[in-house]
C-alpha cells in the first residue's frame, strides 16, 4: 500500500484543508503540509522522471536534501521549475506539474530509455558521438533528458531587496542556532536568525517542539529578528551573507503590493553557522525506486505531518537513526519487517527500544537491492550468514550516516577535515568572522551552540546567559560506514538528480578522471540542484575505493554559492525593464515629444533622434532637417554635452596637463578645440574648452565621457597634484543648452533680445550676458559647419528659453533638429565622433592633430607615449574621407577598405557613412593606413563578397574653407 494520512497526530492544522493539483489531478492536504507531505498523503509515489534515464522518482527527503524528483509549481509567468517538493509549502490552489515527463508521468517508456541509456554514460557531454550521429539522437535525448522548462511568460510579480547590518547573523534555527540565539539575546549585541523552514526548530520538531516554540517566543520578546522561510545561499567577503526570503510560496497569486521574494544582503560582524546535519543515503541496486526514503525524513513525515509514506517497511542503516525510525513507524501503527544494520551488534538506548518493540534486527547485514515495478515492492538482504533473503515491503528507510552542512563555511574559505569516527568531513580551520556550531545529537548541538555564542560574545566583550536546554535523547552508538552495498549493478545511484551511478564513478576512475575536481565535472555529480548535499560523500567514497585511496586522500571540492538554487527574479529584484539601466531625461523632454520627436537613447540620455512630420519617411525627415540648417536655421538640444568648470590659479596648468593643446594661452572669451589622451598616447576624448576668466575655464567633454573626465580631474587634483590650487566641478545637469545653427542663427538670436555683443562675437568664442531676459552663456562653436550659437541657461529656465525661441523663430521658419540629422551635418564636415571614428589605438596624429605638439612646452598625459616607435611608425591608420566612384552607393559603415587589387589584408575601414542631403551624394569617413598620403587613391570597400570601388578623399566634404562658420 502506498502512502496515506495517519488518523491523528502531526503538527498540521487538520481544521484547514487545502485543495491542490498535481499532474492534472485534484488532491487535498492540510495547512502546515509541504507539497511533498501532501503528495505522500495522497498516495503519490512517482513524482517525476529522472534527468537522463527517465526513471521513476519519488519523495526521498523532507527538506533541502530531497533529491528525488523536481516539480514545476505555478503556471505561465508564475511557474517556477525545478523545485524540491519538500521545500514547497502547500497552499490553496497550488498547481504542480512533474518535471521531465515525456510522453507522460505514468506511461512506460522503458523501450525508449533502453536505447538511450547506453548513449548517456558519464562524461557524455565530453565525448564525441561518432556513431551513428549525435544529430540523429539529439532530439530524442533532449526530450527525454533534462530538467524543467523556463516560464512561458514574463514574471508578473515584485521582488525586493533589503540591507541589514548586524553584529551576529545565526544561520539555522535548530537546537544549535536557537541555543546560541537565546544565549546572545540579552547580551546587547544585535542578532538575526535565519532559517529556511516556516517554523524554527529544525530537528527539535522530532524531539521537543514545545521548547522550540518557547525559544521563538523568547527571542521575539528580546527583539531578536528571526527570518523564517529564508535560505542563506552564500557567505561572501567581509561577512556579507546573501539570503533569499520566500515571502509568498512559489506560484501563488499575490495580493496587490505584496512581494514574492526578498533578497537580504546582511552584513554581519560575526556569522554563527549552525545549519545542522544532512542525512546520507545508501548506495545499492535500484536505490532510486519510489518508496526509498531517508530514515529521518520518514520520521518527519510521521511526526510533523501525520503522514505514512508506506505501510510495510524495511530499514537499512549504519547507525542508530534507523532504529529510531523503526520505533516511530511501529508507534504510528505501521509494520516494520526488518532493520538491516551494517554494524556488528551494538547496544544503545535506540537499539534497546527497537528490540523491546519486537522489531527483527539483522546485524552485519546489507540491503543490496529493491524490487518492484512502479515502486518498492520488496527488498533483497544479504545476511551475516552469507545467504540472501527477499522481504516484501512497500517502503525502505535508509540511513547512511550524517554530514554536517558545511557549504557556507567552505564558501567563506574554511577547510574541511576528515572525522574517521563519524565518517564525515567537518569544519577544521578557523575562518575570520565565522563561528561554526554543530553536534551529532541534540545535546551536542546545544552545547556547540552555547560555546559558539560565548566565543562571539567575547569578541564583543559581552557575556552570554545560561540557556535551559531542550530534552536531549541519549547519545548514539558509533556508526559503521557502508559506501556501497551491492556489486556492479547499473542502477545503484550516487546522485539521483544528476542520474550518476556507482558505475559512472568507476568509469571516471578507469578513464583517469581521479582528481575530485575532474570527477565532479566528468560525471556531473553534485552539479544538479542537490549541490552535493546527499551525493558528495558517497561519490568520494566510491572514487577512493576505485583508486585504492582513503576518502581524505581523494579530498573534496570547495563549495560555491548558491547553497540552494535561487531565482533570477530575486537577484534582479526591482531592476527590471525601465529600472534596469535608467535613462537620463532632458529638461525639455516633454517639449520635444510635443513636437513629435522620436526619442532614442544616446549614452544613457533620451534625446530627440528626428522630428518626423506626418507621413514622412525617415530619409525624408533627415533631408528636410539637414537642409533647414544649411539654408535657414534649426534648433537642437545640446544639454547632455559635458560641462566641467575649473577655477583657481592652477586651472590653466591642469588643463595643459590633460590636453594635447596648450589651453593656458587661450584668451579670455575664446574657445579652443582640444584632444585628451590616455597615458598610452591614444585619444581619450575630444571637445572644446572655453576661458570665462583669467582663472575660470569651462571644459566640454563629450556627453559619454563627461563623468570619466570629471573623475580623472578629481584624481589628478586629489592624488597627484594636491598642492595645485584648482577646483573642478561637474555641472552638466545644471545647464540646459539649445543650439541655434544655420545662416539665420545670428538673426534669430538677435530677435530673441540679448545684451551680448553679437556682431563682434567671432567663431570659437564665448560671452556671458542675457538672452530673452534670462542669464545665459552663449558660445559660438559649431558641430554642423554653419554659424552656431549654443545658448546655455540654468536648466530650471529651459522652458522659458524654449518658448522664447519658438516665439521668435516662426518668421525664420525655425525647425527642430534631431541628433540623427546633426550626425549627418557633422559627417558632411568631417567632424569626428570619439569612439565611432576613433578607437583605442587612435593617436592625435592619426586625426591630423599632431602638428602643434612639438611646440608645446609642457608635459601632458600621453605625451611621452607619442614618442614610442609604435606611435611614430609609418602605415598608421589615419582619418580620411571616402567617396564611392559611382557617386551614388552609400558605403557600408564598418566595411573594410582594400587598397590596390582589392584583396585582404585590410587597409582600414569605414567609420561613418551617410547620404549627404547638402551635396546630394554619399559621404563617408574612415581610418585608412597612410590615408593622408594616399589622397585620391583608388580603393575598394568590402561589403560581404561585394566590392565597391571608392576613392580616398579629403575629410571635409562641405565648405572646406570654413566660410560659413565665420560668415
Amino acid at each position, binding site marked *: 500500500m502506498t502512502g496515506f494520512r495517519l488518523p491523528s497526530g502531526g503538527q498540521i492544522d487538520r481544521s484547514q484543508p487545502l485543495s491542490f493539483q498535481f499532474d492534472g489531478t485534484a488532491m487535498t492536504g492540510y495547512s502546515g503540509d509541504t507539497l511533498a507531505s501532501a503528495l505522500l498523503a495522497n498516495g503519490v509515489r512517482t513524482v517525476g522522471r529522472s534527468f537522463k534515464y527517465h526513471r521513476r522518482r519519488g519523495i526521498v527527503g523532507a527538506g533541502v536534501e530531497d533529491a528525488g524528483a523536481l516539480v514545476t509549481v505555478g503556471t505561465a509567468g508564475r511557474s517556477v521549475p525545478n523545485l524540491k517538493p519538500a521545500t514547497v509549502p502547500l497552499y490553496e490552489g497550488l498547481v504542480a506539474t512533474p518535471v521531465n515527463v515525456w510522453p507522460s508521468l505514468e506511461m512506460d517508456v522503458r523501450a525508449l530509455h533502453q536505447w538511450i541509456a547506453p548513449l548517456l554514460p558519464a562524461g557524455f557531454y565530453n565525448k564525441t558521438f561518432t556513431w551513428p550521429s549525435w544529430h540523429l539522437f539529439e532530439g530524442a535525448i533532449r526530450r527525454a533528458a533534462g530538467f524543467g522548462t523556463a516560464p512561458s511568460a514574463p514574471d508578473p510579480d515584485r521582488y525586493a531587496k533589503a540591507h541589514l547590518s548586524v553584529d551576529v547573523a545565526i544561520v539555522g534555527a535548530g537546537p544549535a542556532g536557537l541555543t546560541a540565539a537565546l544565549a546572545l539575546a540579552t547580551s546587547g549585541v544585535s542578532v538575526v536568525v535565519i532559517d529556511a523552514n516556516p517554523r524554527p526548530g529544525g530537528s527539535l520538531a522530532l524531539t521537543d517542539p514545545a521548547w522550540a516554540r518557547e525559544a521563538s517566543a523568547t527571542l521575539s520578546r528580546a527583539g531578536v529578528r528571526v527570518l523564517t522561510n529564508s535560505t542563506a545561499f552564500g557567505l561572501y567577503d567581509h561577512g556579507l551573507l546573501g539570503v533569499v526570503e520566500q515571502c509568498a510560496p512559489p506560484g501563488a497569486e499575490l495580493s496587490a503590493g505584496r512581494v514574492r521574494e526578498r533578497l537580504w544582503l546582511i552584513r554581519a560582524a560575526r556569522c554563527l553557522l549552525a545549519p545542522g546535519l544532512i542525512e546520507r543515503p545508501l548506495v545499492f541496486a535500484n536505490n532510486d525506486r519510489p518508496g526509498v526514503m531517508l530514515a529521518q525524513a520518514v520520521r518527519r513525515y510521521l511526526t510533523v505531518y501525520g503522514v505514512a509514506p508506506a505501510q510495510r517497511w524495511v530499514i537499512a542503516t549504519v547507525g542508530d537513526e534507523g532504529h529510531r525510525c523503526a520505533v516511530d513507524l511501529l508507534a504510528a501503527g505501521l509494520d516494520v519487517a526488518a532493520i538491516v544494520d551494517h554494524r556488528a551488534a551494538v547496544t544503545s538506548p535506540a537499539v534497546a527500544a527497537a528490540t523491546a518493540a519486537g522489531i527483527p534486527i539483522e546485524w552485519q547485514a546489507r540491503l543490496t537491492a529493491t524490487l518492484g515495478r512502479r515502486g518498492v515492492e520488496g527488498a533483497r538482504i544479504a545476511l551475516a550468514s552469507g545467504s540472501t533473503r527477499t522481504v516484501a515491503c512497500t517502503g525502505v528507510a535508509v540511513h547512511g550516516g550524517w554530514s554536517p552542512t558545511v557549504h557556507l563555511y567552505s564558501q567563506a574559505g574554511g577547510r574541511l577535515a576528515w572525522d574517521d569516527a563519524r565518517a564525515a568531513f567537518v569544519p577544521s580551520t578557523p575562518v575570520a568572522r565565522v563561528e561554526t556550531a554543530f553536534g551529532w545529537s541534540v545535546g551536542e548541538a546545544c552545547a556547540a551552540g552555547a560555546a559558539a555564542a560565548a566565543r562571539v560574545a567575547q569578541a564583543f566583550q559581552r557575556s552570554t546567559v545560561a540557556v535551559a536546554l531542550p530534552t536531549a535523547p541519549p547519545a548514539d552508538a558509533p556508526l559503521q560506514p557502508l559506501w556501497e552495498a551491492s556489486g556492479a549493478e547499473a542502477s545503484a545511484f550516487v546522485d539521483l538528480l544528476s542520474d550518476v551511478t556507482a558505475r559512472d564513478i568507476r568509469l571516471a576512475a578507469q578513464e583517469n578522471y581521479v582528481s575530485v575536481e575532474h570527477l565532479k565535472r566528468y560525471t556531473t555529480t553534485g552539479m544538479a540542484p542537490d549541490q552535493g548535499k546527499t551525493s558528495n560523500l558517497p561519490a568520494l567514497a566510491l572514487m577512493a575505493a576505485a583508486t585504492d585511496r582513503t576518502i581524505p586522500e581523494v579530498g573534496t571540492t570547495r563549495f560555491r554559492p548558491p547553497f540552494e538554487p535561487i531565482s533570477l527574479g530575486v537577484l534582479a529584484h526591482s531592476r527590471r525593464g525601465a529600472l534596469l539601466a535608467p535613462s537620463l531625461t532632458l529638461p525639455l523632454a516633454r517639449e520635444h515629444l510635443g513636437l513629435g520627436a522620436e526619442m532614442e537613447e544616446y549614452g544613457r540620455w533620451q534625446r530627440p533622434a528626428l522630428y518626423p512630420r506626418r507621413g514622412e519617411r525617415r530619409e525624408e525627415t533627415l533631408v528636410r532637417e539637414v537642409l533647414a540648417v544649411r539654408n535657414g536655421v534649426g534648433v537642437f538640444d545640446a544639454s547632455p554635452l559635458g560641462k566641467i568648470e575649473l577655477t583657481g590659479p592652477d586651472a590653466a596648468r591642469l588643463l595643459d596637463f590633460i590636453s594635447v593643446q596648450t589651453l593656458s594661452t587661450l584668451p579670455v572669451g575664446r574657445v579652443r578645440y582640444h584632444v585628451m589622451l590616455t597615458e598610452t598616447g591614444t585619444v581619450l576624448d575630444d571637445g572644446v574648452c572655453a576661458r570665462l576668466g583669467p582663472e575660470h575655464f569651462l571644459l566640454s567633454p563629450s556627453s559619454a565621457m563627461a563623468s570619466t573626465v570629471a573623475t580623472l580631474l578629481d584624481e589628478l587634483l*586629489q592624488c597627484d597634484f594636491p598642492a595645485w590650487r584648482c577646483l573642478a566641478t561637474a555641472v552638466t545637469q545644471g545647464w540646459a543648452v539649445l543650439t541655434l545653427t544655420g545662416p539665420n542663427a545670428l538673426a534669430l538670436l538677435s530677435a530673441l533680445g540679448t545684451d551680448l555683443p553679437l556682431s563682434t562675437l567671432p567663431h570659437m568664442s564665448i560671452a556671458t550676458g542675457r538672452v530673452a531676459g534670462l542669464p545665459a552663456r552663449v558660445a559660438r562653436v559649431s558641430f554642423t559647419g554653419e554659424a552656431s550659437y549654443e545658448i546655455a541657461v540654468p536648466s530650471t529656465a529651459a522652458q522659458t528659453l524654449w518658448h522664447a525661441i519658438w516665439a521668435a523663430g516662426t518668421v525664420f521658419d525655425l525647425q527642430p533638429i534631431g541628433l540623427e540629422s546633426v550626425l549627418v551635418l557633422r559627417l558632411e564636415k568631417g567632424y569626428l565622433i570619439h569612439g565611432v571614428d576613433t578607437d583605442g589605438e587612435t593617436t592625435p596624429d592619426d586625426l591630423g592633430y599632431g602638428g602643434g605638439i612639438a611646440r608645446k612646452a609642457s608635459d601632458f598625459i600621453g*605625451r611621452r607615449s607619442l614618442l614610442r616607435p609604435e606611435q611614430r611608425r609609418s602605415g598608421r591608420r589615419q582619418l580620411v574621407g571616402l567617396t564611392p566612384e559611382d557617386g551614388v552607393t552609400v558605403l557600408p559603415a564598418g566595411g573594410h577598405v582594400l587598397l590596390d587589387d582589392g584583396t585582404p589584408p585590410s587597409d582600414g575601414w569605414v567609420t561613418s557613412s551617410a547620404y549627404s542631403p547638402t551635396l546630394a551624394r554619399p559621404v563617408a569617413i574612415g581610418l585608412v593606413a597612410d590615408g593622408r598620403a594616399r589622397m585620391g587613391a583608388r580603393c575598394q570597400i568590402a561589403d560581404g563578397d561585394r566590392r565597391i570601388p571608392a576613392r580616398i578623399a579629403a575629410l571635409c566634404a562641405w565648405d572646406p574653407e570654413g566660410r560659413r562658420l565665420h560668415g
Partner: protein
Amino acid sequence: MKPPLLASRIEATMHLIPCPYCGPRAEWEFQWGGEAHRPRPDLSADDATWAQYLFERRNTRGPALERWVHRYGCGQWFHLVRDTVSHEVLAVYGVEDRPPDLVVEPTP
C-alpha cells in the same frame, strides 16, 4: 549610433571598505584606482622605463597598496592596503601619506 545598454552595477562585489571620511561602506560605492605609489617618469625617460611605467604592475600576492575613490559617496580618494589573498583590508591612509609600517613595500 546607439551605444550598448549600460548594465547597472549589480551587487557582484562584497568587500566592506572603510572610507576614511564616511566609515565602512559597501564596495559597490567605490571605484578602484589601481596600484598606488607609482612615480610618473618625466619626458626624458627612455622607452624601457616608460614602457615599464605604462604596462608593468607589481601584481602583489598579499598586502597590496591601492588607490580607491568613494565614487558614489563623498568623492574622496584615499589609499588602501588590501590583502589580495585573504581579501582583508589591512589599513587605510591618506592620498598624500606614505604606507603604514605594517607593509614592507616591495621594490618595483
